[in-house]
Structures are given as structure tokens and as C-alpha cells.
């Protein structure tokens, strides 16, 4: 056993003693560090002072809910629904706490050579809350819900490459793609793709709220709260709480007060301004997890003045990322480098030089482009993110040093994504975490993507994107992503100042695993099934 591995085991054991690591994770890491499963089990029993305990009602304040939410997975939009989906429904695959891809309904999956056909083997233990077994029919109907001409699903674009979905017996599902996609199992974690019980006609029954997740809904009201209780016989490990209450708390102050006063056990988002103050409260743990989510500032590369790459780079140079991270995010972010690939995603290239605030160079670039004293307008709204307006204002202040005048236009919150995004040449956009760089680039940087928010057309980039998609060799893939990152950084039309962290909080008596998933807030939206009460 290497020294490095021994250190790792010591650390894991220490974490286990403090009760900060789950048994599952403990086993996972120990085995990874070279122990056999039985040795690991022994070590767990000796070192874990506080292993997950069952029981209790988990009151969970969630920051984005709406009275007009529905159970339709195709129109999931708010955090409350996404979190609820991860609590009462199942997916084919799930993202583990350490960011790896793990099984949910599918026990295992494999691809054809060119990654254009995928086979998922389903677990035979899974059942819906109604008692019905989860079979291939349910999976096929659930995926088809997002396909076809008359679907109203927001996930339609995700599955456009799927040509056919077939079953091979009750527990095997085969998916045929029009072109290879090595990341297809990752796509299956998308929050829209929850598996619902199928009707006889091949549609799904989403209205009843039935699912095969760790908890079943007892009662609830959209935009207010949901009460759930444990689904005995859930097909995976976890679900320690007896009951879960998911409460919609849209007002940041109400959320925080509820956490401070103990009206809830955890909240899904903490106001960054008060993060530091909250950390001082001994009753509260602030959980700060780097994510792949980002605020982007796309410029239309085909619209003056952004059609000049020097202007674009000047604008990229005149933003002080550190200042923004400090003032807007209070440090809770990873510095961005103008390519949409975060350290929380696989294949992240760690050797690309960081772009820094350099108003002088920006000035000279502008001079070169003949655009000195540039004036542009940037559109933003509070609905983009809590600090989006402040951020734009701060950027405008910083850009003054480069002789750039930026007018901040606060747009109405309502309809921002229908009237501003993709319509105004320079705006702020909030992007949720996507599991892989491929998904992200395909969605918003591919030349013909519907959401190519910067109207960026780069031949080499698109070529690489297609190659990487079906490349099953990780090393080659990583190299391709590195080159794409450089292209986006130096030629692309999007400023990415930072990847924001997920900052959420829990009462001190709530036990959490060491690794918290970075796909969503609250441990990848799975706090209900992964956390527990310590006392």
C-alpha cells in the first residue's frame, strides 16, 4: 500500500470518527485506496463514531417554488420541483457525492463501439409507491414523454439524437442514437428525465405524483409545502429520515430566519451576504460546494461592436473577477476563465492560464480595434441571480478603467428568458450545472445550437465537439476538451467571470456525508435520502 493511500485511509477514518462521512462513501474511498471490502467494513465499525441513524422528520426549506408548479416532469422548472423529483422519483442514473456517475434504476450500462447504442440493465428491486414494479415499459414511456412532435417538454432538445428506444425483456432498455454520444448515461441524470409509471397507451401518469424514489408524497400543495414519508423497500441505500417536509421559502430573509430559529433543519440556499455571519452561529453548518453552475455574459459575435474579437477580449479583460467574487459572491465561487467547463466537471484542463483584470491591455486592444471609448449596454435582471444586477453595476465600474462605458439595463424579471436572452446582444445569463462539458458545449456553443447565446461560429471548435462526443478514450477526449477551452477562451463571445458555489445550510445536528454532490444545491438535490440526524 502506498504512502499516499495510507494517508488517505487515515483521513477517511478521521472523517468517519467525526461522523462526517457516510458508510457508503467510506467504503467507496477505502476500497479505492486499496483496502478489501471486508477490511474496510472492519475499519468503518471501529472508526465511525456517528454512523447515519434512522429517524426524525427532516424539514427542508427550499428557495424557489411556485404555486403553479406541476408534477409534469417535462415542465419541471423550480428548485422545489427538482428537489421533489429527486426525492419521490427515480432516474436511470445518478450523480454521486464525489461527482462520479452512479446507478439509480439502472444497475449497469454499456455502449456500442461508436457509442451510438446504449443498453441499460434495470434493477429488479425497484417499485413505485403504488406497489407496481418498475419495468422497461415505464422507462420507455417516461423517456418518450420528452420526444415527439407534440411534446411540451423542455427536455426535448436533450433527446433529439435518440432515434429509437426499445426493450429487451422487462429489465433491459436499449437506446439507439443517430450519432455517438459517450456521455449519454450522464444525460440520464437530467432532472426532467424522471421515471414515472406508464399508462397502457404508452403515455405516463405524472398527475398522481407516483414515483419510485426514496420518499412518497403524503400530501402537499404546490408553492407551499410537501410532506413525504419513507418508501420502504427503496432500491438504493440511504433514506434515513422517517419523514421529510419540503417547505417553499422564496424570501431569502425568511429562509435564513427559519434556519436560525430552527423552524427548518436545512435550507437550500443561504444569502451570500450573511454567509460569514451565519458561519459564526454554532448551531448552523454552512455548506459551501463548488459547482458547475455559472453566470455567463454572452455577446453577439455577429453584431457590432462584438463582431471584433479584440473588442470581445477587451471586455473580457476589463472585468475584475476577484473583486466580483469577493463582493458579489463573498468568496463563494471558482474563478472563471471564459470557457464553460468547470473544475466540478470531468476532463477539466487545469493548465490553461487564468485571464486576469488588465484594463491597460484592454485599452490597447480597443485601440487596435479602433473602438476607444467604447459604450455598450448590458441587460440584466434580479431573476437571473440574486447578485446579477449588482454584478453588472460593479462590472460597469471596473470597465471605466479601460475607458469602456457600460450602461446597466435592468430588465423586468418576468419574461427575461423569452424577451432578453438570445434577443439582446449583451446580457447576463444564469446556467445551472450540467454534468459534462459535452452537454454544456452542445447546448450553448455549438454553431447550430438553438441556444448559441453568443452566436459564436468556430469551425475547429465544432469539429472537435463532434469528435469528442463519440470518443470513448478518456485521454484523447481530455486533450480535445483542452483545445476547445482555449478556443472559447480566446475567440469565443462569452465572458464567464466565475462558477458559483452552492452555499446552503443545515442545523448542526444534521449529519452530512463528506462529499456533497455538485449537481444541485442540497447535496445534488438528494439531501433527503443522503443526510441524517446525529442525535
Amino acid at each position: 500500500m502506498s504512502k499516499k493511500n495510507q494517508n488517505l485511509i487515515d483521513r477517511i477514518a478521521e472523517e468517519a470518527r467525526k461522523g462526517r462521512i457516510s458508510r457508503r462513501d467510506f467504503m467507496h474511498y477505502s476500497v479505492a485506496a486499496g483496502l478489501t471490502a471486508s477490511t474496510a467494513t472492519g475499519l468503518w465499525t471501529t472508526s465511525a463514531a456517528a454512523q447515519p441513524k434512522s429517524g426524525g422528520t427532516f424539514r427542508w426549506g427550499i428557495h424557489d417554488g411556485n404555486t403553479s408548479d406541476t408534477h409534469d416532469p417535462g415542465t419541471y422548472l423550480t428548485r422545489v420541483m427538482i428537489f421533489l423529483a429527486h426525492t419521490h422519483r427515480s432516474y436511470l442514473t445518478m450523480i454521486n457525492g464525489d461527482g462520479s456517475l452512479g446507478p439509480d434504476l439502472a444497475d449497469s450500462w454499456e455502449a456500442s463501439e461508436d457509442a451510438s447504442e446504449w443498453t441499460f440493465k434495470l434493477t429488479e428491486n425497484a417499485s413505485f409507491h403504488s406497489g407496481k414494479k418498475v419495468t422497461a415499459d415505464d422507462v420507455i414511456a417516461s423517456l418518450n414523454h420528452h420526444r415527439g412532435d407534440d411534446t411540451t417538454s423542455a427536455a426535448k432538445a436533450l433527446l433529439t439524437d435518440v432515434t429509437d428506444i426499445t426493450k429487451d425483456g422487462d429489465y433491459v432498455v436499449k437506446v439507439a442514437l443517430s450519432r455517438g454520444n459517450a456521455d449519454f448515461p450522464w444525460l440520464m441524470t437530467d432532472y426532467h428525465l424522471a421515471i414515472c409509471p406508464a399508462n397502457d397507451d404508452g403515455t405516463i401518469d405524472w398527475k398522481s405524483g407516483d414515483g419510485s424514489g426514496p420518499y412518497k408524497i403524503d400530501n402537499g400543495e404546490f408553492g407551499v409545502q410537501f410532506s413525504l414519508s419513507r418508501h420502504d423497500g427503496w432500491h438504493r441505500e440511504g433514506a434515513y429520515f422517517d419523514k421529510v417536509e419540503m417547505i417553499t421559502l422564496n424570501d431569502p430573509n425568511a429562509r435564513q430566519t427559519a434556519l436560525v430559529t430552527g423552524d427548518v433543519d436545512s435550507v437550500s440556499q443561504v444569502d451570500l451576504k450573511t454567509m460569514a455571519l451565519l458561519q459564526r452561529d454554532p448551531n448552523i453548518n454552512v455548506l459551501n460546494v463548488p459547482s458547475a453552475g455559472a453566470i455567463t455574459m454572452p455577446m453577439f459575435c455577429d453584431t457590432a461592436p462584438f463582431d471584433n474579437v479584440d473588442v470581445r477580449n477587451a471586455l473580457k479583460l476589463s472585468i475584475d473577477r476577484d473583486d466580483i467574487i469577493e463582493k458579489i459572491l463573498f468568496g463563494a465561487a471558482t474563478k472563471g476563465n471564459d470557457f464553460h467547463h468547470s473544475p466540478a466537471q470531468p476532463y477539466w484542463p487545469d493548465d490553461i492560464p487564468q485571464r486576469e483584470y488588465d484594463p491597460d491591455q484592454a485599452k490597447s486592444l480597443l485601440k487596435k480595434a479602433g473602438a476607444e471609448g467604447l459604450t455598450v449596454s448590458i441587460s440584466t435582471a434580479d431573476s437571473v441571480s440574486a447578485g446579477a444586477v449588482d454584478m453588472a453595476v460593479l462590472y460597469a465600474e471596473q470597465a471605466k478603467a479601460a475607458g469602456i462605458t457600460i450602461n446597466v439595463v435592468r430588465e423586468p424579471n418576468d419574461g427575461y428568458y423569452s424577451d432578453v436572452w438570445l434577443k439582446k446582444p449583451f446580457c447576463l445569463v444564469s446556467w445551472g450545472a450540467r454534468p459534462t462539458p459535452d452537454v454544456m458545449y452542445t447546448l450553448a456553443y455549438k454553431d447550430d445550437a438553438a441556444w448559441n447565446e453568443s452566436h459564436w461560429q468556430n469551425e475547429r471548435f465544432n469539429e472537435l465537439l463532434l469528435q469528442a462526443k463519440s470518443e470513448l478514450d478518456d485521454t484523447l477526449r481530455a486533450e480535445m476538451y483542452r483545445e476547445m477551452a482555449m478556443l472559447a477562451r480566446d475567440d469565443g463571445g462569452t465572458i464567464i467571470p466565475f462558477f458559483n458555489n452552492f452555499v446552503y445550510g443545515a442545523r448542526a445536528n444534521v449529519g452530512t456525508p463528506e462529499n456533497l454532490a455538485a449537481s444541485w444545491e442540497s447535496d445534488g438535490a438528494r439531501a433527503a435520502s443522503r443526510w441524517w440526524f446525529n442525535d
Partner: protein
Amino acid sequence: MSIFVIGYYAALIAASCLAAYYKKHGAFMLLFSLTLVSFIIGIIGGVPALRAVTTFAGALALAAGTSYAFKEFLILISKPALAKELRTAPLTASFGMFVIFTYAIAAIFAPWIAPHGESEVISSAFAPPDENMLLGADQLGRDIFSRIIYGARNSVGLALVATLLAFFMGAFAGLMAAVKGGWFDQLMGRLADVIMSIPSLIFALLMLSIFGTNLGVIVIVVAVIYSPRVFRLTRAVAGNIVVMDYIEAAKLRGEGDWYLIRREILPNSTAPLVAEFGLEFCFVFLLIAGLSFLGLGIQPPTADWGSMVRENATLISFGDITPLIPAAAIALLTVAVNFVVDWMLFRSSGLKEQ
């Protein structure tokens, strides 16, 4: 027992005795009951509580003194007719006038008074107060004090313009309705009913969502929301005037509606309208603050008290007073306006209760 406590009670008792000696019953009751209450406060809260009482009383006395001095100042500089009116102003009203005056100065001379620029980032976020920044910095490191000064200009200016517009529309419609009567009166009345029956915040929300949140839209929407109230009041006031014989005389002379409104009705309805203006101003101010609170207010980085409260509201749970300052600025101004309005209503209603 500290010297402070001894001095505290000695001063109170001596003042009570003096008041009693000079037969100032009100003052005596006030002072002596304060003495008695202080015993209880002192027992429960100890010296700090007594200090708080002293500070509070001192602040009150300072406010009263300032108001009194300001009133005398106004009396001296104004014309005899106005000075006579001013002499009737109670302390609360002169306090109100003083506050309004201060706000007006702050608003007009904001660029000169404020030590820093409105959106100038000068330090780190939430930097504590120092000699450079009176009240510390906000979430972007901008000077809160400067932003409050500029906020006076923006918030108060916006509310003022909106109220003026509401008044113009409401009063004009009300006067026309009172003079014309008949179907026009009915129509305007129904229209006012319709607007009033939709909750103001909802109405503003809808309209601002439709037309965007630029200043012009805010002013117009808020004016439309509040004009029915002005309309109703003007209609009622003018309704009392149009039955006067001098209106009948003017009508029988063959005067037109516009002359009736301008020369006969308007001069007689100014007092209640001005008082209403003050009240409306407060409501408009609070509505705009509420809109800003919901994120539909003035565009950033323009400083505005409502948004300043909203931006920092979460700090309240930690006992940080930063967000309370702009909120208190809102409250102080509305209180001040209400004080003045109260006095004016008292004057115009002719209540001479002693």
C-alpha cells in the same frame, strides 16, 4: 450606586418640584411619573436602562429644541401672514417641517453633500464605519451615507413627481366631475371604483411587468393607482363647494366650467387638497418602497431607499442595523410629512378644541 444614578434621580425630582412650584401640572405629571417609572426601569434594567432613558429623553429634547428653533427661524424669515400661521404650529409640526427641509436640502445638494459618488465603489463589501465612511459600506463597498443622501433625491423625487401627477389627474377629474355632474360624474366615479378595487400592489406589479420598470412607467402607474383617491376627495370637497351660492351666481352669470374650476372652486379647496397631498405622498412613497422591495423599483445603480432595504434585509436577523437606516429614513420622512399634514388638517378643519 453610581453618581450617574444619583444625579439622574436628583435632576428628575428637582425638575418635578420646580414644575409643581410653578403650577405646571402637565410638566409635573410627566416628570414625576417618569421618576416613578424610572424606579421600575432601574430595578429591572439597571444603569444601562437608565442611561437609555436619558439618551432617549436627550434625543427627544434635542429634537424638540431643534424644532422650536427652526420654527422661530421660519417665523422670522417669513411674511407676517405666513408667520402668523406658523406660530400656531405645534412642535410636532415644526419637527416635521424641519425634517422635510433637511431632506429637501439633502436631495437638492446631494452631489455636494455626499462625500462619495452614488455608485462609486470605495472599499470592500460591508466595511465597518470609519472616518471616511460615516455609516460603513454596503454590499458592493459603496458608502452607505452617500447613497442615503442620493437616495433622498431619487426616492423622494420620484414619489414627488408621481404624487404631483396623481394629483393633477385626480384633482382635474374630480373638479370636472363636480362641475359637470351627470353622466361624466358617474363615469369617472365608476372608473375610480374599478381602479380602486384592484389592489394597488397587484396593479402596479401587472403594469410594471407589462411596460417595464423605467422611471416614466413607475411614475405613471403609481399616479394612476393613486389618482382615484385624489379624485374622490376632490369630488367630495368640490361637491361641497358647488352647492355654494357664489357658484350658483357664477353659473347664472353664464361662466364656463373652466372659469368655475379655476377661479371659484380651486382657491377654496386648496387646504384639504394640500393636506391630502401630504398623505398621498406618504402612501406613494411607501408603495414605491414596496415595489422596490419586490424588485420592481428604480434602476440600479441609482440609490433608492426601498431597494437598499431589500438588498440588505437579511442582515436584520443578525442585529445589523445597516438595512434599517434607509427604512428609518423612509419612516422618518413619512412621519414628518404626516406631522405637518396633521397640523394643516387641524387648521383647515377649524377644530378649536382646547
